[in-house]
């Protein structure tokens, strides 16, 4: 099926996000230039650009990697996730300026092709402290470039959400390469302990946030799993646990399911949004549709189908309500299958 390209749809929040983002980037670059000229007035413009862009890009990458776990820990961070792709593309462009200046400065106008020189000029691949750190930055930049060019929904649809997500998870490989790039490059020249502490602080912050968010999610899932298991159906929730037009996500018999309560009914669909695998269970019923918290993709709760003209469909599940308890059968119906909602009997 052909996938057509649609330009980025701008809205007020996207514009505001980008305004704040680029004001932040200007703040970092501007401060870097001012402080360099004040504290190290003999710096060259090339060195200033190389260092300022490197610093800005790595700070942005840390912010990008923090957004995911922060949103898991507190949903009020979700506005930062909404336009994270623009943050990523901006970070790549700044990293590209850093790489271009480095290649021109250190490798161009010589007796070897500049790109080949990145790999060949320093052949000490066998020694850690002498390792040609530029190669690590080069490969990280390739990963970031692939992510930047595939960030548009055109590629999301073309590659399929699963493959797209896998590609974009390689940001962690890029991050690891960049940590090594800094440790084996700049830290071999700038030997003040401050830089080692700074690098480790960033790494530990990212790792710690991911561990805490993962632990929270896992413990929630385990608690729910232990409470389930019945013949055919599993008891998964109390009615009062779910707010009107909101959901509870459960993990039952290998199925990740979102149970929605709305208009005196309860329906269950797959918890995974077809767009970017967002957690639908953290979404809300808006205008009669389940609405994904990440990018606002919508589905009817009764049949898992997106409202026309959209064509995304979710798997649906049977639901029963016995007294105040919600029971669910985790055998999924084919995507888009209408299932009678369970009716809440207030009597």
């Amino acid at each position: 099926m052909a996938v057509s390209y649609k330009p980025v749809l701008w809205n007020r929040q996207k514009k505001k996000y980008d305004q704040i983002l680029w004001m932040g980037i200007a703040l970092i670059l501007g401060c870097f230039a001012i402080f360099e000229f004040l504290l190290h007035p003999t710096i060259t413009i090339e060195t200033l650009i190389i260092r300022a862009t490197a610093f800005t890009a790595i700070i942005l990458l840390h912010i990008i990697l923090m957004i995911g776990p922060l949103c898991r820990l507190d949903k009020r961070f979700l506005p930062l996730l909404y336009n994270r792709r623009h943050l990523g593309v901006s970070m790549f462009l700044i990293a590209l300026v850093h790489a271009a200046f480095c290649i021109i400065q250190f490798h161009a106008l010589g007796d070897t092709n500049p790109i080949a020189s990145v790999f060949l000029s320093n052949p000490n691949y066998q020694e850690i402290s002498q390792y040609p750190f530029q190669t690590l930055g080069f490969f990280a930049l390739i990963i970031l470039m692939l992510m930047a060019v595939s960030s548009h929904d055109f590629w999301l649809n073309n590659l399929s959400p699963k493959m797209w997500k896998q590609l974009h998870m390689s940001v962690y490989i890029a991050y690891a390469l960049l940590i090594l790039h800094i440790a084996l490059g700049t830290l071999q020249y700038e030997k003040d302990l401050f830089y080692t502490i700074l690098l480790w602080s960033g790494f530990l912050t990212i790792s710690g946030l991911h561990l805490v968010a993962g632990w929270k999610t896992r413990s929630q899932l385990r608690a729910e799993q232990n409470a389930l298991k019945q013949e055919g159906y599993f008891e998964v929730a109390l009615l009062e646990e779910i707010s009107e037009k909101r959901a509870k996500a459960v993990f039952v018999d290998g199925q990740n399911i979102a149970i929605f309560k709305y208009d005196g009914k309860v329906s269950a669909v797959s918890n995974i949004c077809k767009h970017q695998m967002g957690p639908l269970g953290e979404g809300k019923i808006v205008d009669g549709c389940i609405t994904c918290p990440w990018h606002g993709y919508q589905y009817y709760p009764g049949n898992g189908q997106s409202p026309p003209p959209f064509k995304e469909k979710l798997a649906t599940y049977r639901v029963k309500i016995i007294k105040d308890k919600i029971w669910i059968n985790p055998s999924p119906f084919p995507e888009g299958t209408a299932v009678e909602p369970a009716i809440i009997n207030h009597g």
Partner: protein
Amino acid sequence: MDKQDHFYIGWQETMPAPHRRFLRPFLFGLVLLLPILVFTTVWFQKDFNDHRFELGTLTEVTGTYYESPVPLLLADEGELPNTLSKSILLVGFGKFGAEGIMKDIQETEGSLVGKKVRLSGTLIYGAGHTVMELTQKEASLVQVYEDAALKTPALATNGAYQGKGEILDPKCYFGVMKPGEGKTHKSCAIRCLSGGIPAVFKPDNTGDYYILLDAQGKKLNEQLLPYIGYLVDMNGSVSNYFDWKVMVVDSRALSLNVSRKGERCGGDG
């Protein structure tokens, strides 16, 4: 359960008030934190030397051209400010030595060795030494004077050196790059020496600089490439080439000179 059900949707005009109230101090904190982080990062950097590269400014200098052991222009009195050395080491455009350019010039002009010439180029200077990049390549020759050619003075050994230090490319170190030494500059130094810019040895405990030559008085660049970025033990006989010091090193024993592979040059800015 929240008493008020606030739900964020990116494509809506505004975000819910609790989200806005939560994020505002968070973003404000970032605006305060980032400049502090930038300041400390810049504060702890090594300082740069005061070497200069007059990028974009071409200077014409009259003097006597010498070619051996390395291309050099001995500037006439008054041609350069007194603060600069008159012995101008010549290098090519980009990461190349000056030999190729001077060879092309001499193919049309005849030998210029020992003759008074006027060259145009970009000055690089620092630490008591002067280098000139022949930026305009063959067009760097402005004038050849008719004076009789002078003889190139022979290199007379006047001492020996033994010590440790770093091998540098003088073009970057004396002004083109900040820093022009250490791990981050290693690849560039390898490219410059590979392109024919003479290797210079900088001892780690003196302010001297030595152009490195082999026993035949030729540049040692290729043999030195594996040792760039290391702290190297070096020994050789020393002579003067105008204001420059030259060290003749036994290239066959060069590998033995690297005795401290555990130590790396971090540079001292």
